[in-house]
Structure formats: C-alpha cells, structure tokens
C-alpha cells in the first residue's frame, strides 16, 4: 500500500513516517501543498494523509483540485481546527475522513485501515441513469461527474430508484425500502426525501406519476444508463 503523507511539521512528519513504515506502508512525504498536489496528481497512491495547514497551497485547495480533476484516492484530513464549520468544509472539499490534532497514532492507523478497506474494489460495476452515477461498493453517487453529498437515507432512495429506473414505484414500496423498521412512516416522508433528492440531482430527474408514485428518468439528450 502506498501512502502520501502531506504534513509540514518536521517532527510530526518524522513520527508519522516511522509509524506508517512500521505498519508496512510505503510512504512518500510532501512538506508543502505544491509538492503534495504534484505527487498526488502524478503518482498512484492508495490513500492520502493531508494536513490542512500546509504552506504554499492549503490542504483544502489541494483536495479540491484533485477532486476537480477526477481523482478518487481516499483522503484523510489532519487538522488542528476542530470546529464543525471546518469539518464540514473539509468533507465538502471531498475528504473521506477527518482527524483533529492532537491525535493518537493508533487512531490514525485504525482510520487509515478502515479507509483503505472501504475503497478496496473500487472498480465495481456502477449504476447510471443519464448523468447520475452510483457506485454501490463505495456508496458514492455523482451527477455529471460532480460528487453528490447524500445522507444514507437519500442514498438508499436514489439506489432503489436507480435499480428500478424507468419504472413507476409506489410510495409504500419506497417507504418499505427506505426504512427497515416500522417507523416514521407518515405520509409525507417520501415527499420530503424525494424533494431533497431532487434538489441535489436536479428536479426533472425524478418524475411524479400522479396517484402511482415516482420514476427516475434520464434527461432528454442523455443516454439512458444501465
């Protein structure tokens, strides 16, 4: 496993390099944002440990550039800033996990292992419907290449609609597949989630068939998917 460690503090870098090497990872070190971006752009890493407070280019910008260029390498963010607004911004930029300094090396290694496990087998068959793509193994979805930020309930709804795209699915059926327990099945639950999903993937992609239910469709001019 090849890891890119982007961290500017020499002591912390030395420690982490040692700990990662002890755990049998091959580690490249980038002391600033410019080099981190260059390495991440050119070398095939399995995961990146990215400090947000990097000199030259800050971590969030580096991450945003990678994601814009279509890089899907899992990224674990290290930061001294633990406010929720900063965490949310990190995940917005495309981070896969987040660790606040100071941390235990053990925790970093555990999170890194989980990250690598989740991203294994990334090349699984993806579902697509027009510009919407969904990768069931990584539990990720995108619209026209832009990654979607979905909660698990929204993701589950989209997954079910994509599995049955083109077919009208009734509300009861959707509720049953959205919630595993008999719970919260009030009448407008589905409307709420369909509304949120429409906001995220585009309003015309989910069609309301009056009295029957909903149908996921490809937009005109888009090739219908698998």
């Amino acid at each position, binding site marked *: 496993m090849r890891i890119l460690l982007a961290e500017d503090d020499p*002591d912390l870098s030395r420690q982490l390099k040692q700990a990662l090497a002890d755990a049998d990872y091959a580690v490249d070190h980038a002391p600033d944002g410019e080099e981190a971006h260059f390495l991440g752009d050119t070398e095939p890493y399995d995961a990146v440990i990215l400090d947000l407070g990097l000199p030259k280019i800050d971590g969030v910008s580096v991450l945003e550039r990678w994601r814009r260029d279509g890089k899907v390498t899992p990224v674990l963010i290290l930061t001294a800033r633990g406010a929720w607004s900063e965490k949310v911004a990190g995940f917005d930029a495309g981070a896969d996990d987040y660790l606040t300094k100071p941390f235990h090396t053990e925790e970093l290694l555990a999170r890194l292992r989980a990250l690598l496990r989740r991203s294994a087998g990334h090349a699984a068959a993806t579902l697509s419907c027009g510009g919407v793509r969904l990768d069931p193994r990584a539990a990720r979805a995108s619209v026209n290449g832009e990654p979607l930020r979905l909660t698990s309930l929204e993701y589950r709804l989209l997954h079910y609609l994509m599995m049955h795209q083109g077919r009208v699915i009734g509300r009861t059926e959707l509720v049953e597949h959205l919630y595993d327990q008999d719970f919260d099945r009030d009448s407008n639950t589905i409307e709420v989630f369909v509304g949120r999903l429409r906001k995220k993937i585009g309003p015309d992609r989910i069609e309301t068939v009056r009295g029957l239910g909903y149908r996921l469709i490809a937009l005109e001019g888009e090739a219908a998917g698998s």
Partner: protein
Amino acid sequence: MKWPALRSPSLAKRLVLLAAVWSLAVLVVTGVAQTALFYQEAITRIDDDLADVADGLYADSTVDDQGQVDAPPLTDSRATRPFSGNYWEIAEIGPDGKLHAQARSRSLWDSELSGPSDLIQTLAAGSSKRVYFNAMGPAKAPVRTLAMEGVLPGRSEPVIFMAAEDRSALEADLRRFAEETAAVLVLLGVGLVTGVFVQVRVGLQPLFALRREVAAVRTGQAERVSGAYPSELQPLAEELNALVAHDQEVVERQRTHVGNLAHALKTPLSVMLSEAERHAGPLSPLVTHQAQLMRDQVDHHLRRARAAARTQGLRERTPVEPVLDELAVTLERIFQGQAVEIDWRAPEDLVFPGERQDLLEIIGNVMENACKYGQGRVRVIAKTDRPGRMSITIGDNGPGLTAAEQGEVLKRGERLDESAPGSGLGLSIVDELVRAYGGSLRLGPSSLGGLEVVIDLPQADN
C-alpha cells in the same frame, strides 16, 4: 429656565432658548425705541405750535407809557376759555427774582404758568433764549411749556413770553401706542419662537434619524448606517460606518490570533503524544495524560474565546435545513464504520438568527454524541416551536442516560465558568453557545430508546 437646563445636552432646547432670548432682547429694544420716537414726534409738533404762539406774542406785544406790557389780542378762541388747555402768559422778572405775570390768557384764569426753579438762569445763560419743559399747569393737568426771553422796545428789562399746551391727551396717546406696540411685539415674539421651534425640529430631523440608525446598528438590526444625510451629517455617518467596520475587523483579528495560537499548539502536542506512545517508559503515561489535558484546555479556551468574540446582535441569518444536511452527510461519513443513519427533518423556511458556524457547533456536537453513543440510528427534527422560537430535537437509540446522569450533565452546564474543560459529552460548549443566543437545553428519553436532547433557540423572522 434655570442654567443647568440650558447646559443640558439638548441641541433643540439650546437653539430654541437662544432664539427666544435674542428675539426678546430685539423686540424690547424695538418697542422702547418705537415709543420714544412716537413721543418725540408728538412733542415736536406741540413745540412748533408753542413756538408759533410765543412768536406771535413777542411780535405783537407793545409797551405802554408806564412800562406795562400790552398783550396782543390773539385770535385763538381756545385761549379764552378757562382751562381749555391752551395758555399763554407774559411775565417779567420781579425784584425777588421770580416771574410775575404781566398779562395772561383768559384760559389761565387766576393761575400762572410755572417753570422749573432755574428757568430764569437757564434763559439768561442759554444762547437760544427758548426753553421747552414739562410742568404742571392749571387744573392739575400736565402741560408742555415754552419760555422765551425777549426785549420789547420801550422797556429795558427783558420780558418772558410763555406758551403752554395740555399734555394729557398726548400722554394717553402715548400709553395706548405703547400698549398696542407691546401687544404686536409679543405676538411677533411668540411667532418667532414658534417658527424657530418648528425649524429646529424639522432641521434636526436627520440627526434623530441618524441616532435611530446607530441604535439599530448597536442592537444588530442593521449592519451599517445606510441613509443619505445632509452634507453636514454625511461625514459623521461615514465615520460611524468606518468605526463599525474597524470594530468588526479588530474582533475578527483577535479571533484569528486566538485561533492561530491555539492551533499552533496542537501540532507540537501531537508530536509529544506520539513520541510518548512510541517510547514506553516511566514518563510516557504522565506525558500522555498531561498532553491530553493540554489539548482539552486549548479546545476549551479556544471555544470560549470564540464565544466571547462573537459579535452581539442578530445580523446573521442561517437557514437551518442546509446546516442539518451538511452535518448529516459529514457525520455519516465520519461514523461510516459504525453505519450510522441520520434521519433529519427541517422546514425549508426555518432560519436561525445567528452565525452559521455557531449553529454548526451547537447541533454538530449534540449530533456527534448521538452518533457516538447511539447504536446507528439518529433522528433530528427541527421545527417552529411557538412564534419566534424553534426547537431542534436530537434522539438516538443508544443506552441513554439515567435521570441522575442527565441532572449531572445539566448541572455541569449551569456552572459553566467553574466547569472543567472537556466534559465527556462536550455539552458545556453547546450549553454556552445556546445560552449566548438566549436558548436552552433539555434532556430526556427518546422514543428511539436512547437520549433525547431538545435545543430551544430563537427563530428569525421570514
């Protein structure tokens, strides 16, 4: 009005009062001058008449063989009726130095015209030989008198010709004129002061408007002073805006400084923690423990500083729905190892009257607890509670807290200032933030089986 009142810092009062004092002075001077002029005019007319009479006497008087003065027959009939108001007299200076009437008008009857005691000397010394004076005439009526010294042919001693006219009509006229003038001037004064009052109120209107705007900025209803002001006030409004901007900049800079300091400490702490873990030794547990304490302290004071530096007021508006969406997505990502499922509901038009990062901090910490201690199910429901308030209910399906534990958490929340940093649930920072926004926290059992935290917060108007 007393002096302290004048010194009181009311511009309107000062302006009106100054105008009133000034108007009063000008009007009094005007009134006095007017009356004096009127009197002068009337007296001059009377004096001219008296001069005519005296000149007539002088011109037509003759002296007989005994040296007696013979008065001419004057045609004015008024001088023949007793006490008619028009009098004349021809007098000579007696051996006793006093005037003795030689001839007098019929109107004088038996009385004589009198003059001031130094009349003879004045006549003797005066160059014009004419003296006008006010005196009491016959029948106790005030008269205007002219005395004129003249020398008649055939008589060596000079003769005094005197003419007098009743002044009482003039005095009455004068009084009436003074009263009328005073009335008109009082009316004018009231009008002037009223005018000044209106002018001040209207003229100072932009000042009152500016005060209202500044108050709005202070209470947070407005970001800056916005209105267009008269050219005298515009620079003040601009300076105020610059001051507000400077103030915000300073607060922001302090916030950044505190943040930078705290964050700069964290990387060395990480190094210490890792190093202590890697080299097990007698110092290792101590260093680990102390480094963790330091981390908690840094976090605690960082948050306190952020809370203290928060700008007062309700300038910010943060829609709740996107915040819940972002937190749900982020937390599910953070806890994806535990397969946490966050089910959240919020009306789209629910708006929190505060900063976005504060709302993120409040809900994020509580939701993180729910994810951490729950068993995979977290439910968040935000809704309008009652007018102007919203409630955010966060429940989980974890083991929950006993009533005693709930009380403990809340008690710790109440004594925030003494509370140790880094309480296990991280609720102290939530409680602090919620209180800063005039809200409250409530704990209870959730219908999901675990703990339910209800956050009560103000809601912004739509």
